[in-house]
């Protein structure tokens, strides 16, 4: 009779290990590490395919098993012998298995409690309209911290982060403003107060772009700018 194991039934590496120990009918306190490790690794190969989410945990235990195996094969170094006398490399694992087993054992009983309770149904419909303009009760009016967290997460997700990626096409280009500036200068006999020029502009962004255009024109040597004092009036002049 071929054996078939339902892999999804294993709730983690310890569960699998306990299963192997039981299946092989070996003493939990004297685990034949070599054989159990071999079998464990065979299962892990399969689990890797099926239980990707927890594959790491299965592999971690595989590594532990291999380490224990290696430790048991090695002759004890004198130093080690001094430090931990009689320490079996398997002890920690056994302890972990027993601790896990404690809780695993009672899940069956808890499942029975659950089963039994599911045969009983409480009332689900609450609709108390007491006289006109009275409340219609809503049930479970309180929220949990988890629900608060849930709402927080949803709000953050819902909101497109406008503040960070606010991309907008400028209504004007530096090129346009260079042309505009030169035309204005021509209109005003080649001389213009910067602030007068700024007054003609409607938006802040246009002022900024115009300023860039101004710098561009200075670099090209087409205009020059003079200021009589700090914070004083800025004169823009056409260079001939």
């Amino acid at each position, binding site marked *: 009779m071929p*054996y078939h*194991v339902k892999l999804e*039934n294993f709730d983690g590496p310890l569960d699998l290990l306990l299963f192997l120990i039981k299946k092989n009918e070996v003493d939990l306190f004297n685990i034949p590490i070599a054989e159990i490790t071999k079998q464990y690794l065979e299962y892990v190969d399969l689990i890797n395919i099926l239980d990707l989410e927890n594959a790491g945990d299965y592999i971690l235990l595989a590594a532990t098993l291999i380490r224990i195996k290696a430790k048991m094969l090695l002759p004890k170094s004198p130093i080690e012998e001094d430090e931990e006398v009689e320490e079996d490399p398997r002890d920690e694992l056994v302890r972990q298995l027993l601790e896990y087993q404690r809780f695993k054992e009672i899940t069956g009983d808890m499942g029975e409690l659950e089963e039994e309770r599911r045969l009983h149904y409480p009332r*689900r*419909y609450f609709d108390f309209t007491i006289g006109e303009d009275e409340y219609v009760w809503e049930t479970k009016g309180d929220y949990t911290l988890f629900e*608060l*967290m849930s709402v927080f997460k949803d709000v953050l997700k819902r909101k497109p982060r406008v*503040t960070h990626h606010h991309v907008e096409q400028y209504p004007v280009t530096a090129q346009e403003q260079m042309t505009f500036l030169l035309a204005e200068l021509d209109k005003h006999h080649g001389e213009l107060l910067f602030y007068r020029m700024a007054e003609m502009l409607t938006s802040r962004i246009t002022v900024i772009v115009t300023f860039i255009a101004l710098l561009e024109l200075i670099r090209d040597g087409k205009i020059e700018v003079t200021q009589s004092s700090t914070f004083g009036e800025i004169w823009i002049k056409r260079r001939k």
Partner: protein
Amino acid sequence: MKSEEIKHIVEALIFAADNPISEKNLRQLLEDELNGSSVTDIVTALNQEYMNSGRAFYIDTVAGGYQIITRPEYAVYIKKMYMGRVRNKLSQAALEVLAIVAFKQPISKADVSAVRGVNSDGVIKNLLERRLITISGRGEGIGRPLLYSTTPEFLEYFGINDISELPKPREIEELFKEGKYSEQIVDALANLEEAENPENTEEGSEQNGDDQSTENQAE
């Protein structure tokens, strides 16, 4: 089936329904067992019993069907029972604002609104009145805006002792990050499993050294 038995099934169904249950629905659930008897008669009989034994509830006939409700004379007590809760029930908007204040406190009104993308002044006022949030200081920015934080009442509502016990945004993100397989899939598999093999003990799975035909649920 005896008519007494049918009566009690009808009672159980009306009792446990999460909405008024229609006669048609009751008939479907009882399949053919109802046969000759009339649902109306059964309900009348039940109500007669309730009346005779002075029960505090009765079965009412509403548009959608039957529902079991308490007699009006007890309304005053029930109202008292629910009153506090109803008053405390937070709207979705309030819950959102509360969540933002809780996990980003201290925070200004403008920042709350910015996160939600909706003006939240009204909701904030409401939460202030309920004493779930409070003004806790002023920010550094332009105009030094008022900053809001949660109150001890807030902690009580959510059953924690101290503001430091509130999860950090990083922890929230961690909690909600999606695994490769969502829990629902795992659950679904487990249930499938159960349906196929009510005993999930491994008894039958005999070992067989090399024969690794660990085929998924063969059978």
